[in-house]
């Protein structure tokens, strides 16, 4: 007898739980899980957005892997940007965080300055860098000229366009610096003091204490950085249009052009699915880290 009211009590509680979670259940199904399945489905079709999608089996993938060099080019460009930008951002971000951590009472001022570009809106920042990259009158090449260096053509050169984007992305390094700084402040100073007593110098302290202690944070920054950088789109759309010679046609720009300019939704979906499959291992890694943090 006492069991019945209890179970109805829990039923009611359960109902409240679902009710509170309803907005997200709708969002999750409509904007994430549904679209993932839809992308897989569309990748096996040819679809112009008007006539119903027509199933064509693995045709899109066959074309993609065997007949479309522009896909490989875009994939190469994207990897170049992802690894170049993330490697430099994490390395320099760590170095600057360590420097800032030693800056005592001035740390706040430097942090404010380094983080400022992170909050600036993307489009104005890109216009600004288009000016800075101007081969003849841009600030960058004028600066190099001071040292007698004949600066490259940057955005107008197929060789230098991606390095230019990577350089620009370094202006946003403040985010990583702030994350590393928080990590550094969690390392006990006793560790350093003990090592210093043993006669370790600053560089040894960095490699033997700082880096190992920050390993999870470094790892986290690399993985989130790679996933974030894989979505590079706006820079190329606004600053180069994918050129010169397709040197900045990244995967997302290709998907955008195929899906919304050429209206080849099926083929564009196949590309997005391939990119998804490439990145899923990174997503799984991050999931593991976060699940540990969120342990019930």
């Amino acid at each position, binding site marked *: 007898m006492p069991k019945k009211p209890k179970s109805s009590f829990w039923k009611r509680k359960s109902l409240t739980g679902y009710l509170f979670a309803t907005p*997200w259940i709708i969002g999750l199904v409509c904007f*994430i899980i549904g679209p993932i399945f839809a*992308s897989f489905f569309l990748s096996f079709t040819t679809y112009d957005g008007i006539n119903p999608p027509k199933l064509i089996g693995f045709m899109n993938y066959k074309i993609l892997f065997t007949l479309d060099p522009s896909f490989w080019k875009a994939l190469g460009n994207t990897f170049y940007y992802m690894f170049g930008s993330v490697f430099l951002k994490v390395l320099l971000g760590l170095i600057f965080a360590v420097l800032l951590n030693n800056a005592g009472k001035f740390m706040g001022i*430097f942090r404010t300055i380094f983080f400022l570009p992170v909050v600036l809106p993307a489009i*104005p920042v890109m216009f600004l860098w288009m000016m800075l990259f101007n081969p003849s009158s841009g600030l960058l090449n004028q600066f190099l000229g001071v040292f007698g260096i004949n600066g490259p053509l940057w955005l107008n050169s197929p060789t230098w366009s991606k390095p230019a984007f990577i350089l620009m992305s370094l202006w946003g390094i403040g*985010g990583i610096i702030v994350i590393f700084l928080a990590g550094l402040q969690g390392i006990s100073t006793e560790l350093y003091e003990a090592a210093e007593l043993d006669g370790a110098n600053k560089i040894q302290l960095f490699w033997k204490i700082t880096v190992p202690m920050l390993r999870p944070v470094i790892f986290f920054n690399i993985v989130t950085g790679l996933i974030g950088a*894989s979505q590079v789109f706006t820079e190329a759309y606004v600053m180069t249009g994918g050129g010169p010679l397709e040197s900045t046609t990244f995967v997302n720009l290709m998907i955008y052009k195929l899906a919304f300019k050429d209206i080849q939704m099926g083929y564009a979906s196949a590309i997005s699915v391939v*990119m998804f499959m490439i990145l899923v291992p990174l997503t799984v890694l991050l999931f593991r880290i976060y699940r540990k943090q969120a342990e019930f």
Partner: protein
Amino acid sequence: MRSQKKMKLIREIILYTVLTLFSIIFLIPLFWMISTSLKQEAQVMIVPIQWFPKSPQWRNYIDAVKAFPFFRYFWNTSFLAILNVVGTLFSASLVAYSFSKLRWKGRNQLFYITIATMFIPSQVLIIPTYLLFSKLGWVNTYLPLVVPAFCGGGAFNIFLLRQFFVSIPDELLEAARIDGASEFRIYSQIMLPLSKPVLFTVSIFTLLFSWNDFFGPLLYLHDPTKWTLAVGLRSFQQQYTTTWSLLMAASTLTALPLIIMYFVFQRNITSGFALSGSGK
């Protein structure tokens, strides 16, 4: 002992020189934006560089604002940003409360799925989401840019709020439950007031994200009167492709609200960012 002191001094001098040097390098682009915005067009591209405009052309700002519907875009952008903040605050906190303080079947599984979706490479979502909104007849309205905020406001915000809610002791809520308060009342009158700092962090990030979003408005807003600053600026640039002084004036005006916000709420923004980055 003395040489050790000397070493320390040298090290500090090097440290501060390097940091100051890089601070200047970091500020130069921003300075260049403002400096260019005040130049006469003929002075913009000249060699050697003119660091400071000879006679500041404040008129550039008036001309820029008149050259394209700046105030309309400013209003549209603000409107979208505010709706996104309101939607996210409300729906993400509701869902986070459910994940942290209510017990229901499948809760943990759904929360794991939520965590997994935080890092979904979003490429795979673009086309079907567009088709969905298109079938609903929502293209060229603000709905695709607003409705998702009211549907949970994104996995990351839910996660952030949930982690904070978990840290609030259950005893506080139990007392209210015994008094017969409804869950919604406990959520709105106990939980939310206790969570002001994290709600503020979520608001600022949502605001920044919405203000800077380019892809969403590019994809969904075709009617120029509905455009946001990001898309409007882009079209302005294509029309006035060589008028850098006006373009930089318009860019400065677009960045200004965020710069002001940054200096006012700096502590919240950087600490919120650090929090989000360490996954804690």
